[in-house]
């Protein structure tokens, strides 16, 4: 199920980058990011609403490529 409160968007360029994917998986404490078998990014929809708005993912990727959206605003 997609998030009811939070959505995370990642630019295709970043999602295809195995290095950045690894970084995103590492920084997120609530497991919203996972790596697919080919090393590209998977967003775990079930975990989206666990997002603690820490911005660590935003800081981990090039500016503007990862966006955390509050769907209640």
């Amino acid at each position: 199920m997609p998030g009811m409160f939070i959505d995370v968007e990642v630019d295709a360029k970043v999602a295809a980058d195995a290095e950045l994917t690894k970084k995103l998986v590492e920084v997120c404490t609530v497991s919203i990011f996972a790596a697919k078998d080919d090393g590209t990014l998977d967003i775990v929809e079930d975990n989206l609403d666990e997002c603690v708005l820490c911005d660590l993912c935003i800081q981990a990727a090039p500016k503007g490529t990862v966006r955390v959206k509050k769907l209640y605003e």
Partner: protein
Amino acid sequence: MRFYEYESKALFAKHGLPLGTRQVVNSAAEARAAAEAIGGPTVIKGQVLSGGRMKAGAVKFADTPDEAAAEFEAVLPVIVNGESARSILIEEKSPIAHEYFVSVTWDGRRKLPVVLFSDMGGIDIEEVAETHPEHLSRTHFSTILPLSERVAKEAIGAVGVTGSDLNKLVPIVYKLIQLFLEYDLTLAEINPLAKLDDGRFIVLDGHLDMEAEARGDHKALLAELGIGDDETRQARPPTEFEIAGARVNAVDHRGVAGNVVEFDGNLGLIIGAGGGSLTLFDAVRKQGGKPANYCEIGGNPSMSKVKNLTKLILSKPGVDKIAVMMNVVSNTRVDIVARGVIKGCIEAGKDPAEVIAIFRIPGAWEDEGFKILAKHGVEYCDRSVSMYEAAGRACAKMGSN
């Protein structure tokens, strides 16, 4: 965590405390066979955790195996404080010359363990303390200095016991102290500790309580006694609703959303933290509210834990609305709890605006939380509304004050 008498006695036996011949039985035929093997008068005792079983009729005496079988049938259905017997213990009945009382417990004020000893056993010890204080001794002992038998000797001697009785009692009391410390017990009690006509001493009845926090350290013993992890051993066994609540809390390690206790009202409570829950439960009852449950959330639980707890409470028959309330939080996040309860309502097929009577959790991330609540039309308040007032608002919506 309380032990049944037969479990306590198994532990006593393991540590060499003197006991009568006894057997746990589960049918009248077994009772007859056990009485035959014992060969003489017997006591038939229902195994319950609560006190007062003698008065309730869960303890009977028999002279013959046939009588033992009949008394088994008489004791088995007896309910003591709402509790039915788990099994029946049948034990040899010996002629008693005198009864003593000994108990080891913690003194929270002195922060030390204490041995209570009395030569007026078999009766309510609080009564002895009030009417015959000189017959009850209190002997504290160190938890870091070496332990020796002199603690037992002083406890017994303090009520005037001397001679060979003193010397026979010392090893019994000392073993009880060792048992108390070894198994992290909060209470190790023998009452009565009987002196028989032939001069021997035996444990007639005993009561052991293990600290819940220490269960993990004594897994081998608990397995040996056949006590499962899901046996809470509170004053009453857990209900299915409570077991489901424990499962919700066990899903992940982030925070607490559990300690669910079932009540029979119509207002579901999602409350916290520890002290806050006690405060809020009182406030609801004081204002005429009828709680469907007690629970505690805190320590920054995950969204899904809160969500599942919400769903569980909403699934309880008779629950019309829920109230979500805590003291000012600094670790738990208001927005995460708000997300959890709203999502829980929706997944349970309910409208959050309708079913959440009030949301009163001020503190960390409250601005984000309040935005979420406003978006879903849920009534919420900040710290300017007291816990008591918030509870009152919820009660008013239930039409109960």
